[in-house]
């Protein structure tokens, strides 16, 4: 009977109910899409930094790795430490080129695992590093720069010769330019410097010892394990907070929509509530009815929103320019959290109307019949 009463009330004002469902749905979709995209971007950037390694070493107290300065000599010294299998310096830079406002440059050594792991679509790893002016382009960068092996491409204020193109699943790498480390140092005027060192240990068990040795020997640097880095890097935190804030605002608006619907729903059927009271419905039963309506709206909105969000992510993923930036697979935890937030929003929106309905006295509504 509860379900029948709820369905009756919602179907009585179909447009109003649908608008409320749509409000929650679009909020949920926006939240899911924004957070998934940003989490995907953060994940990709994080993978980019910690590529095939467990530790990243960078300058302490910098807000952005692009401003981090780590001497390359530190990478050479660390590589000699007994617990270290490999230490690779990488220098990050961002430039413009033609109509492309942002191209990420990676100054890496020839033996960098990024180059080894990628699928080379033209050229080969051996061709990288022998020519200081030779760069390797990510597949998407090659496409938007319309460049192929042997050609010269403008990168910022200079020209480089393309010695290879490669394909990776990472959007930043796929849309980036790999330069020999020395060329990058020269280009970005950071002689003998890198932005970070990615370190692969022989055993992850040595991580604590490695980090404390870095702290002792290089007090200006900090070493973080990949998970620590993803969690604590300020840029990531800002991005994540922004995503949740944007999504939260969306849900707040959706919740206000639900509240408005429920208030209207209660106000327009005071008499009906009075009848229910007169035939024996308790205050709690009336409250449950209002809550049930709100939860129904929110649940329908959440389901529709998750579907719309998934669809939007799939469409975004299909756009070539966003290849590698959009992770179209929202994490189950995120789906659960967003759905739970939508339901909570619906419940919160029903609180005032619920208490109002519970206070309706049968006689007030029936006296003037």
């Amino acid at each position, binding site marked *: 009977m509860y379900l029948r009463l709820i369905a*009756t009330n919602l179907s009585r004002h179909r447009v109003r109910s649908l608008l409320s469902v749509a409000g929650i749905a679009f909020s949920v979709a926006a939240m899911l899409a924004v957070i998934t995209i940003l989490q995907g971007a953060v994940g990709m950037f994080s993978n980019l930094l910690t590529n095939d390694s467990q530790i990243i070493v960078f300058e302490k107290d910098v807000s952005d790795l692009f401003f981090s300065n780590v001497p390359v000599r530190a990478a050479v010294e660390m590589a000699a430490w007994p617990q270290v299998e490999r230490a690779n310096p990488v220098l990050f830079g961002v430039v413009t080129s033609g109509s492309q406002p942002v191209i990420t440059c990676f100054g890496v050594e020839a033996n960098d695992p990024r180059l080894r792991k990628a699928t080379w679509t033209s050229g080969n790893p051996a061709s990288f590093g022998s020519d200081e002016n030779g760069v390797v382009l990510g597949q998407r960068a090659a496409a938007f720069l319309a460049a192929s092996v042997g050609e010269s491409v403008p990168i910022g204020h200079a020209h480089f010769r393309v010695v290879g193109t490669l394909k990776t699943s990472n959007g930043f790498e796929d849309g980036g330019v790999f330069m020999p480390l020395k060329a990058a140092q020269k280009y970005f005027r950071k002689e003998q410097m890198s932005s970070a060192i990615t370190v692969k240990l022989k055993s992850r068990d040595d991580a604590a010892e490695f980090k404390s040795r870095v702290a002792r020997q290089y007090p200006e640097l900090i070493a973080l394990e990949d998970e620590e880095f993803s969690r604590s890097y300020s840029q990531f935190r800002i991005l994540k907070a922004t995503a949740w804030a944007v999504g939260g605002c969306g849900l707040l608006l959706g919740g206000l929509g639900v509240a408005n619907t429920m208030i209207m729903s209660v106000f327009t059927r005071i008499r009906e509530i009075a009848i229910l009271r007169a035939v*024996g419905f308790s205050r709690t039963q009336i409250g449950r009815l209002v809550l049930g309506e709100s939860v129904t709206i929110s649940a329908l909105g959440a389901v529709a929103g998750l579907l719309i969000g998934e669809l939007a992510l799939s469409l975004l993923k299909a756009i070539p320019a966003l290849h590698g930036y959009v992770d179209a697979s929202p994490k189950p935890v995120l789906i659960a959290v967003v759905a739970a937030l939508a339901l909570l929003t619906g419940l919160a929106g029903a609180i005032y109307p619920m208490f109002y309905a519970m206070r309706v006295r*049968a006689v007030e509504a029936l006296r003037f019949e």
Partner: protein
Amino acid sequence: MNDTRHTSTLPGPVLLAEDVWKGYDGGEVPVLTGVNLAVAAGETVALCGPSGCGKSTLLHLLGGLDDPDRGVLRVNGKRIDSENARLPLLRHAIGFVFQLHNLIPDLTLEENCLLPAFAAGLDKQVARERLRELATRTGLVHRLGHRIQKLSGGERQRTAICRALMNRPGILLADEPTGSLDEKTGAQVFDLLMEIAAVEGTTLLMATHDRRLASHCARLVEMHGGRIDESDRVE
């Protein structure tokens, strides 16, 4: 649900009002001014009087829908001062029939009638059987699945009677049950009300200004200016 009527086994009146006062707008509009009334189990009592004399207010108070400003109200010997005391009464002991049927228009006849059973948490199957019994008696079986909008005025009021009797209340309070019907339909509904009250042994307190119908009740109670002037039994 069993066939047990929810009536008092105590010898005293099932409905009792002692020096009951009620006013609106903070007492500026006095409606009841010291009403005393006792209704015995199984009695059929007509509450007559001009509009505004306080008939409906008294029914609402006795039915637990409102609070008096002063005085004592008892149903089946129990005071009905609190929500906790009133809710079981509304669910089991008292049935209400209003002048305007007060049914929920978007629900079917069956769904409307099942509302009290649902509120009281009664077994669905038993409630449906009870409804079928009442619908048969009121000639509404063929209309069970129809929405209220599709019913005539008489059918709606008969539906309201079915709803009021769903949980086998011992007391039926009817507030101008024929007031919105034409003379012929009103008489039919009234006869039905009296018949069911007799068959089910229900105590009936009915507010009406139709003296011809009121004369069929075992007792007629006159109200004037918020007070009761009880006459002799009407034959």
